[in-house]
């Protein structure tokens, strides 16, 4: 559904994307992870026509994003990192303007439907500024879903939300997937990617350094983790390929050793941490 070929983009001397190649399948939730400045938002901005790349190609549903932006805009929905709702307008007015811009058919009925689906009916006439952060995020999602896009871009959708509201949002994102939409999600929250994504890509300095299902990534990097404090009082977390290897390390420590299964965060820390150390050296 989304195909990226050798995509590069720089901001001054900083290379935001460095020959990125990526394919995202239809109806999957794909998570793009990476530290700050890894190129996640730049990727989304290029795919949603806010930024032009220096080189490379990208296709959404077979349409060349750079050559036919108008056609691509008809099939995508975007939830940006920043809340870009019209704060002085009501929820309904925000949806109305967006729906008109996207030429949604039977707009008024569609707005009523989406308000029901997103449980926003009683907030219909509320001014956006008066809503809590959680509700504003929900309105952003409702707005992006209004034209029934084939592909959704969610750029850090749960940033700044408390855990309870974040989980509510996850339910909505899961619902989007069941409707057959493809979702590209960028996130800082590793547990979010683990809970939602079918596949995950880890970006580092504009390059894809890992790609696969959360399970595959954990298997590749190591399924077990041993955690302990060393002689200098430093906290050590070692990812091991097998249980036996983990036991061997644990046995050498007299106390305060934790042996557990690895998670996506361990994968992320190991892969990006190794690279950061290489750069520092």
């Amino acid at each position: 559904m989304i195909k990226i070929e050798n995509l590069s983009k720089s901001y001054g001397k900083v290379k935001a994307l460095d020959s990125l190649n990526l394919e995202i399948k239809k109806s999957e939730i794909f998570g793009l992870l990476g530290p700050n400045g890894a190129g996640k938002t730049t990727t989304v901005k290029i795919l949603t026509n806010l930024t032009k790349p220096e080189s490379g190609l990208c296709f959404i549903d077979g349409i060349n994003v750079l050559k036919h932006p108008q056609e691509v805009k008809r099939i995508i929905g975007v939830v940006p990192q920043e809340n870009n709702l019209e704060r002085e307008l009501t929820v309904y007015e925000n949806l109305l303007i967006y729906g008109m811009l996207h030429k949604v058919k039977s707009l008024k009925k569609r707005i009523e439907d989406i308000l029901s689906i997103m449980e926003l009916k009683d907030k219909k006439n509320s001014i956006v500024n008066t809503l809590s952060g959680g509700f504003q995020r929900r309105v952003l999602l409702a707005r992006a879903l209004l034209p029934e896009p084939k592909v959704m871009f969610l750029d850090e959708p749960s940033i700044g939300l408390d855990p309870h509201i974040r989980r509510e949002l996850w339910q909505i994102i899961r619902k989007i997937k069941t409707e057959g939409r493809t979702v590209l999600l960028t996130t800082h929250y590793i547990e979010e990617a683990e809970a939602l994504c079918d596949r995950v890509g880890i970006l580092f300095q504009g390059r894809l350094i890992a790609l696969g299902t959360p399970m595959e990534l954990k298997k590749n990097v190591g399924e077990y983790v041993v955690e302990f404090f060393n002689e200098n009082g430093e906290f050590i977390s070692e990812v091991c390929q097998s249980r036996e290897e983990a036991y061997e390390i644990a046995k050498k420590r007299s106390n305060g050793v934790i042996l557990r299964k690895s998670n996506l965060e361990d994968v992320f820390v190991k892969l990006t941490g190794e690279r950061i150390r290489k750069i520092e050296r």
Partner: protein
Amino acid sequence: MLDWYPIFLKEMLQFKRKLLRLGYIFSAMMAPIIYLITFGLGLGRTVTLSGGVDYLTYLFPGLVAMSSMNNSYSWVASTLNLSRLYFKTFQIYIQAPINPFSIMIGEVLAGMVKGLFASLLILFVGFFLPSGFKINEIFVLALLLNCFMFACLGVITGMITKSHEDTATYSNFFILPMAFFSGTFFSLDRIPHVFKPFIYIMPLTHTNILIRKNFIDTEALLSLFAVLFYCFLFFVLGYLLIRKYNE
């Protein structure tokens, strides 16, 4: 065809909310009233103009032109700058399946409405003042073109400024001198010859010439062409800036 309408509608909904706040109307009227009182009724009483025209009659159309310029320009420049750089709401237009031309039209029409509204407020105040000023077709045409021209210029400023503070800088360098030196408060005949080329480059000068005419003579025709040229130039530049939008 009507792709510009949602953009215009959004601006109008926001404008309506602002109008409901009582302070907005008074603040929009404040500057022109101060000018009318200070220059028109105060200093103006000592001014004699050729042809027996009283100063208030001379000043009034100039104030309408100035106010329409200020409001069309600053509203568009400021809201576009804020929506592009801070609220990121402009990005919604870029990501929507509409062309840059429609975005330009929507923004300019909204700016024109605000400029015309401010002009109406002054005309309302002027209704109670003793002047021989009368509205004719040339006045209406000049006013509409002026609003269009400065709304287009507002788009240019809104698109090129890198921070909200820059908007004030552009305003201080271009709009403020134009307000005072383009024949709003005094006749262009009184300006030394050395400065005249600079004065005639300013778009507002030509609106001020046109807006005071009772019939189309050669001078009015030249000014009309100058205003139309600026309208075209600013519109094309604004459109190109929107089309080339790249974060």
